[in-house]
């Protein structure tokens, strides 16, 4: 029963409620075209937020993901233009994403450097590296077959399919598999997890590697949607991804949250951004609204936890 009062349920209600209200003010908001655009254009954020949720649940953070997605998208596009088989252009970013994130995870887990420092350094490396290698050149003339995102499965566009599958797979895996539960155990209390036979260090490494996989997938959805890849890092993308996770109910203190919540939150944020346009609010206010939203969610989350703790039970 408690599940119905969960963050996921609230988000689902908010997503639908907002659509109804804004649709009432401006019916054009509810046009299939607009709703599809919202979903298609932001699916990659939801995919990246799946991995980010795991990282945050394990008690860490990653601020390099935006830069990583930019780098992987550029590599993927360059490979396709250089005439590599499409499959290679699709799979190399996934492998690279896993490799880069696993390296960061290893430093965090085994050398015990805080994730914020490691990913901050990596952010500089990826961002600077990308611009100095490409010179900010645009990648054009992408082959037709490269556009994975244009395909559809049973009438559903690929980005939405990938988003749904990634979310569902991760949700089931995190809830029911021992390795998935280990993420919660590590984030909740690493020492207690160790005593229960969970290896927190291996768990953190695994979480980062998986996060790299989802970041690779996100970059794929992102890159194959574009006709022109700008070969720069999408600015503030890491923040959007973290926002989706946090608004989705993933607690930054570790140990709590689901990726269903983060996916719903990613959709909600995209919906809000679009809604602001339809009710004639200047797009320059979007970030302020988004910031206010995170702040409110975070404060509500903490207060709720404190009230529960006061009532004498945890989580």
């Amino acid at each position: 029963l408690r599940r119905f009062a969960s963050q996921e349920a609230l988000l689902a209600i908010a997503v639908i409620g907002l659509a109804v209200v804004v649709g009432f003010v401006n019916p054009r908001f509810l046009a299939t075209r607009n709703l599809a655009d919202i979903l298609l254009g932001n699916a990659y954020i939801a995919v990246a937020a799946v991995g980010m949720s795991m990282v945050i649940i394990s008690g860490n953070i990653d601020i390099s993901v935006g830069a990583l997605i930019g780098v992987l998208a550029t590599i993927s596009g360059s490979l396709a233009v250089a005439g590599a088989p499409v499959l290679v252009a699709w799979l190399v970013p996934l492998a690279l994403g896993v490799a880069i994130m696993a390296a960061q995870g290893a430093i965090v887990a085994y050398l015990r450097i805080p994730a914020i420092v490691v990913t901050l350094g990596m952010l500089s490396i990826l961002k600077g590296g990308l611009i100095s290698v490409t010179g900010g050149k645009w990648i054009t003339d992408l082959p037709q077959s490269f556009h994975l995102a244009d395909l559809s499965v049973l009438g559903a566009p690929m980005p939405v399919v990938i988003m749904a599958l990634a979310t569902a797979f991760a949700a089931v895996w995190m809830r029911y598999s021992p390795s998935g539960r280990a993420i919660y155990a590590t984030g909740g209390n690493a020492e207690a997890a160790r005593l229960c036979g969970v290896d927190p260090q291996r768990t953190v490494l695994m979480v980062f590697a998986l996060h790299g996989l989802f970041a690779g997938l996100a970059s794929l959805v992102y890159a194959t949607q574009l006709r022109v890849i700008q070969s720069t890092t999408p600015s503030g993308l890491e923040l959007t991804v973290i926002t989706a996770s946090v608004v989705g109910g993933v607690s930054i203190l570790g140990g709590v949250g689901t990726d269903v919540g983060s996916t719903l939150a990613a959709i909600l944020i995209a919906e809000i951004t679009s809604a602001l346009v339809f009710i004639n609010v200047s797009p320059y206010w979007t970030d302020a609204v988004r910031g206010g939203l995170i702040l409110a969610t975070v404060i509500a989350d903490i207060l709720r936890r404190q009230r529960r703790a006061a009532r004498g039970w945890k989580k």
Partner: protein
Amino acid sequence: MSVAAQAPVRRAPRWLARHETLLTIILVIALIGLGAFNDRFLTLDNLLNQGRLMTEIGLIALPMTFVIITGGIDLSVGAIVGLCAIMLGYSWKTFGFPLPLAIVFALAVGGLAGFVNGLVITRVKVPPLIMTIATLALYRGLAEGVSQAHSVRGYPEWFYIMGQGDVFGVPTQLLVLIAAIVVAGVALDRTTFGRTLYAIGANETAARFSALPVDRVKLTVYTLSGLASGFAAFVLVSRVTTTRMDMGMGYELDVIAAVVLGGTSIFGGSGTIWGTVIGLVMIQLLKNGLALTGVKGDATIVVIGVALIVSVLIASSLQRRCD
């Protein structure tokens, strides 16, 4: 003061001294190396100019050192710079404030922004990382919303003294930075306030039980961080002669890099202003030296990223050996 408050103080200098010695040695080698590569590098003009360029980051890095010593972090500083720059320009141009009042207003907004961070962190107990990520979006968003992407220019001549002027041949803002460094250094090392920061960072619970005003000190530290960001905004606007909403974007990374490179532990409890200053100078001279030897600006960011990770790796392995 309890044992818990003194213990890290007694232990820290041993490895800190090493870290800073190491850093100074690297700095000197880098200086000589870069100077040998390019004869424009080690000129007084160039060095003073670099001092001018690093002031904004430096001003914020000082209170950031305090924040990190308490075991916190402030990611919203860059956004506060943007917000204050916009507030300065807008209160002057649109609300018609006299310019000196507009400057004070911008500083007040910065202080308030930091105060809000500190208030929520201490009262609601939101982790600093999350609180300041949230306000990073919020403050930048306010800057964007208020300015609607319009920039403000055309300040009177006297306004540029701070950012472009010289006093006895030294850039004005560099003198301000040096004064701020001295004040921050003395405050951290020689006052109860400063020692309380270490106590909080080493063991917050112990600090509370020792009847130290933990919340008040933390609130002060975050407010100072906002205030310094506001002042940095003033210096920045005066240097580049215009106000834009994207000012200070990414400053948080440079600032934290300087502090962490300077040997302040991200876990809190140890660190010095001296280390931060060396970290700051090192980053700036590295950027400049590499640029002069023909490395493009963006590639120097890579070097800083690598330097950050490597220095923390070295510091933490040194620390483990000392423990």
